[in-house]
């Protein structure tokens, strides 16, 4: 975990409110694993408003080059401010934070399922899994063709099979990505799965994989304070033997959790 001033080396507006930043941040890049995030200070230097850092998933990890990539969507003031940074600007980063994905062994078949901007942490995961010799099928859903284009999945991964879905049918499978997964999962018979996306998608994936007895991991999101496990704001519910549920910290116990443990309200 480092505090590092990252230098913005490339910035790209991808449409539909999506932005891509490539940042020189050697300490973070060297230590990072897929599924982790950086906590980024947004806005003017020393400005107290907005106050909190913003957690952004690592969408690319280039250890040798000392660079990380952030792909995010403008959803509020913080991400809006972040979208206005220029090439050459310095970003105040904390990271890499959180528990990343558990990587399966070589030769395993894995299903990776992403919805919208939830695809961001899955890109470095797919890259890493392919490098390790896993057989990867990446199911990616988005609202429509423009959103898919903004995600640029073909550019973000090298290797693995990419299967696309759009809610409105403007590209790939017409319908929800989970319906696509349900249709294709039988013949593929994965050993493990990974998912990140909106809660309804995660719930559907969790249920489907439980039916098929396929273990996997979910990457969650919650409003965050400190990002390191101190403030106890960003909790999620997990199953426990003793109580109906217990809270775990998304920032430091997660954001990646075993799919069987998580209770999605």
């Amino acid at each position, binding site marked *: 975990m480092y505090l590092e001033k990252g230098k913005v080396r490339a910035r790209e507006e991808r449409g539909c409110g999506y932005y891509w930043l490539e940042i020189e941040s050697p300490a973070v890049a060297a230590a990072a694993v897929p599924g982790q995030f950086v906590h980024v200070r947004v806005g003017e230097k020393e400005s*107290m408003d*907005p106050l*909190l850092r913003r957690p952004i998933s690592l969408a690319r990890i280039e250890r040798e080059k000392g660079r990380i990539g952030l792909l995010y969507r403008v959803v509020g003031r913080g991400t809006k401010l972040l979208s206005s940074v220029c090439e050459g600007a310095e970003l105040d980063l904390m990271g890499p934070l959180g528990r990343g994905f558990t990587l399966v062994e070589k030769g395993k078949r894995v299903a990776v399922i992403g919805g919208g901007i939830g695809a961001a942490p899955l890109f470095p995961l797919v890259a890493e899994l392919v490098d390790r010799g896993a057989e990867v099928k990446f199911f990616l859903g988005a609202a429509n063709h423009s959103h898919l284009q903004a995600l640029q999945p073909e550019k973000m991964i090298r290797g693995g099979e990419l299967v696309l879905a759009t809610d409105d049918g403007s590209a790939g499978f017409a319908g929800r990505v989970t319906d696509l997964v349900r249709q294709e999962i039988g013949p593929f018979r994965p050993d493990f799965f990974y998912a990140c996306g909106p809660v309804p998608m995660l719930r559907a994936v969790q249920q489907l994989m439980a039916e098929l007895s396929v273990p996997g991991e979910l990457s969650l999101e919650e409003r965050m*304070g400190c990002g390191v496990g*101190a*403030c106890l704001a960003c909790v999620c519910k997990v199953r426990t033997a003793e109580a109906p549920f217990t809270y775990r910290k998304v920032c430091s116990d997660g954001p990646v959790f075993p799919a069987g443990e998580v209770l999605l309200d």
Partner: protein
Amino acid sequence: MTAQVNLKVNLGGIEMKNPVTVASGTFGGPEYAPYVDLNRLGAVVVKGTTLEPRQGNPTPRIWETPAGILNCIGLMNPGVEVFLHEHLPFYRQYDVPVIVNIAGNTVEEYGLLAEKLNVEGVAGLEVNISCPNVKKGGMAFGTDPAMVREVVAAVRAATPKPVIVKLSPNVTDIVAIAEAAATAGADALSLINTLLGMAIDIRTRRPALGNVMGGLSGPAIKPVAVRCVWQVAQAVDLPIVGMGGIMTAADALEFILAGATAVAVGTANFVNPRATLDIIEGLEAYCREEGITDIKELIGAAWK
């Protein structure tokens, strides 16, 4: 060669190497040790601890507001036994006074907690009678001078360790509450806890926080906190830990000049994990610039 600046202060019996500590619930040693050398802090105040484990409130538990945050964590903690056996050993590795924030549902529970925490490695107790996010105890105790006397007397009777009483700003007359705590045997006061507030999410058209109301912290509340310290410091002869929106050394100095012996950094830890160290360095630099050899000269200097 410049003269050494003496940053040491004594907080009701707790020797601090400098006036800077952290606000309960905003700082965990294991979480911040990668960024902060705990040995450099004046003291560490740990998360509110209760007799039994607490799950805390439903999410969302945090909501950003202009230059501030609302939170409704709800004293989530593993209980005093886990604290003693699993958390305290971590802090024993360091040369830093550990102050444990305690919260009870009843007066008796405060006394029991104080007894259980009368162990080596605990430098003092901070009595939380000001948490706005729990149904029992908390702020309900801290807004009534008679209840404040009862709770503080129970803790006083149960421990020989320094007792700090944390006050709520959500009262008509904070001086009356401070006087009640002093009468009942407090060694020091800490102020302020968060201000009760709320926000509404215009998209869901519902309260933004899971527990509807929450505590406001951050720079937005600093002027309220400085005012409270100013009033209490002049009325009550006890050392004060000032807190509420301290982000920089300049903020900390306002509190010290208003009458605080020590200062606690809270929300700032989330923004800048090194905030405590930056503030310690900033206090020392200010003293050098101003020709102050002992920081105690500045305590209450704005009204003395």
